[in-house]
């Protein structure tokens, strides 16, 4: 290493990550690094292991081997809720919101306070909570729907609500699995606007198929194929990579 050159510490360092399901290696010796305030998009054909990578980082799936370091903390040894508390937020592919609760209650549950059993018994809906919920609700275009039960929302609104539930956690790393899938054109545009606003001051890891959307937001793109990295770099570089064109973009 050069003297006087301090390497910038990575926010997320994934090294040698492997997970095998009954011998099938869904993710195979994968390494990549995400910097602070970087927006990284993972693309790749179906079954490439994209969602599995997010599952591994957030603790939903346990790694067979390898390491995931977040701010120097080893995530593979932590439970899901501890990983959330270190500052990693995850949005699922299908909107997973609490349909029997109102928009307000959905956001309130995600508010990072009173997360233990007795903490939640003593939790008070005070001014700080209300203010933050309203602030986030405004960002996700649901300010006038706070008292609506989540099962009354449209698909797109549910997606926004889940993004809002992550925002209120204020994670340093936000992981989004196909945030615009199944959205109408106008919802898509609004979501891009929303994402562009919320990605400030945090790193984001996005899985997306919509190439137009990827081009709009990505700083760097990682192409996965059969659990391994096929190509990595700027959108421009990846787009012109003959291997990528063959397995993914060519279709």
């Amino acid at each position, binding site marked *: 290493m050069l003297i006087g050159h301090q390497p910038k510490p990575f926010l997320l360092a994934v090294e040698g990550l492997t997970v095998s399901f009954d011998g099938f290696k869904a993710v195979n010796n994968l390494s990549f690094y995400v910097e602070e305030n970087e927006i990284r998009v993972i693309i790749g054909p179906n079954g490439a292991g994209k969602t599995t990578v997010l599952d591994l980082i957030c603790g939903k799936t346990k790694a067979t081997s390898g390491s995931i370091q977040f701010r120097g903390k080893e995530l593979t040894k932590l*439970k899901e809720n501890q990983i959330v508390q270190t500052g990693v937020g995850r949005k699922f592919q299908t909107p*997973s*919101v609490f*349909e*029997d*609760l109102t928009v307000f209650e959905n956001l*309130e*549950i995600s508010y990072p306070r009173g997360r233990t*059993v007795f903490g939640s018994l003593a939790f008070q809906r005070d001014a700080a909570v209300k203010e933050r919920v309203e602030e986030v609700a405004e960002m996700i275009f649901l300010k006038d729907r706070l008292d609506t039960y989540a099962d009354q929302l449209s698909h797109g609104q549910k997606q926004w609500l889940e993004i809002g539930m992550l925002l209120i956690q204020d994670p340093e790393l936000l992981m989004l699995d196909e945030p615009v899938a199944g959205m109408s054109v106008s919802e898509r545009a609004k979501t891009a606007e929303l994402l562009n606003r919320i990605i400030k001051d945090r790193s984001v890891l996005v899985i997306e198929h919509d190439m137009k959307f990827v081009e709009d937001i990505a700083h760097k793109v990682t192409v996965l194929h059969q659990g391994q990295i096929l190509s990595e770099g700027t959108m421009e570089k990846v787009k012109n990579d003959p291997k990528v064109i063959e397995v993914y973009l060519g279709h």
Partner: protein
Amino acid sequence: MINSRFFNRSELIGFIALAAILFVILPLSLDVFRLNLVAKYLTYAFVAIGLVLCWGYGGILSLGQGVFFGLGGYCMAMFLKLEASSVENTKIQSTPGIPDFMDWNQITSLPLFWQPFHSLTFTIAAIILVPGLFALIIGTAMFKRRVGGTYFAIITQAVAAILTILIVGQQGYTGGINGMTDLRTLKGWDIRPDHAKIILYFVEVVLLFACIGIAQFIRLTKLGRILVAMREQEDRVRFSGYSVANFKIFAFCMAAVFAAIGGAMFALNVGFMSPSFVGIVPSIEMVIYTAVGGRMSIFGAVWGSLLVNFAKTGLSESFPQLWLFGLGALFIAVVLAFPNGLSGIWADYVQPRIDRLLASRKSKSGTPWADNSVADGAPAE
């Protein structure tokens, strides 16, 4: 101010109606024998309220609540049995001063685990702590390993079966299949005569309302909303930073403690405790009371316990063989046709009609000063 937030309008009506019936109408209209039957039915209401929290809200179906009902009941019965087995009362036994069933089983001294039940304070603590700790152990073992749903229900059944077999098998320590009978006094106060039964009934109803209050409090906290959230989207709760297992353990323990209080009141009101209230069948019956009342409704749980048991007594007096079929049919009917039970029927059919009736009456007698907002809210007909 606090009251108006603690219960909403229809809950307040439900609360007042239940309080009026249990505190005033039933004691005035029933003879002591029937009132004592109501007291017996209400002991199951404690279990049903626990199940509302654990099953209705938390989505954790326990088919083994009889275990906790039994543990609470046996703790109470052990204290009462010891008091009934004074040296004076048992002088015809070969070993006076120990419970009669021990003497019949050639046990010559009081077993060690029976000793502390000479103390009422210990007994009351044990009624809460023994089932609570047992639920904590089962809950921790299951929920930390992510055993849930049907598997959990089956395991609770197994626990109920095991405890029954254990109680029946250890006749010398537990009274076996006959249970603990001939319970007489509580700290020298005879629990058998009519006036004692009436007092015990009121003590039970007060405790029941305390449990309703605790359950309602839990329901209104963020924990109550997390239980609902967990039932629907367990992963989302987990990825919102909560340890789902801990919340399930809490709900399960609360349900266990409520059930145990019911069991203890059973021993006091009915005057005995036996393994027939511990096993699989009574445990499932307790779930049926909750389902009939409406598994999301705390008051519904009380109504479900009362009505199903009244029906049980009525029907099994006239058609003893038919009762079990009737109970099974009732359960199927409720699950298929009225998944929210009686409280759902009330909320969906009765309440709107009452509201409409009140609204139309108000608008008919409407004066220029009358509050129009109620009438406006009614559907135009």
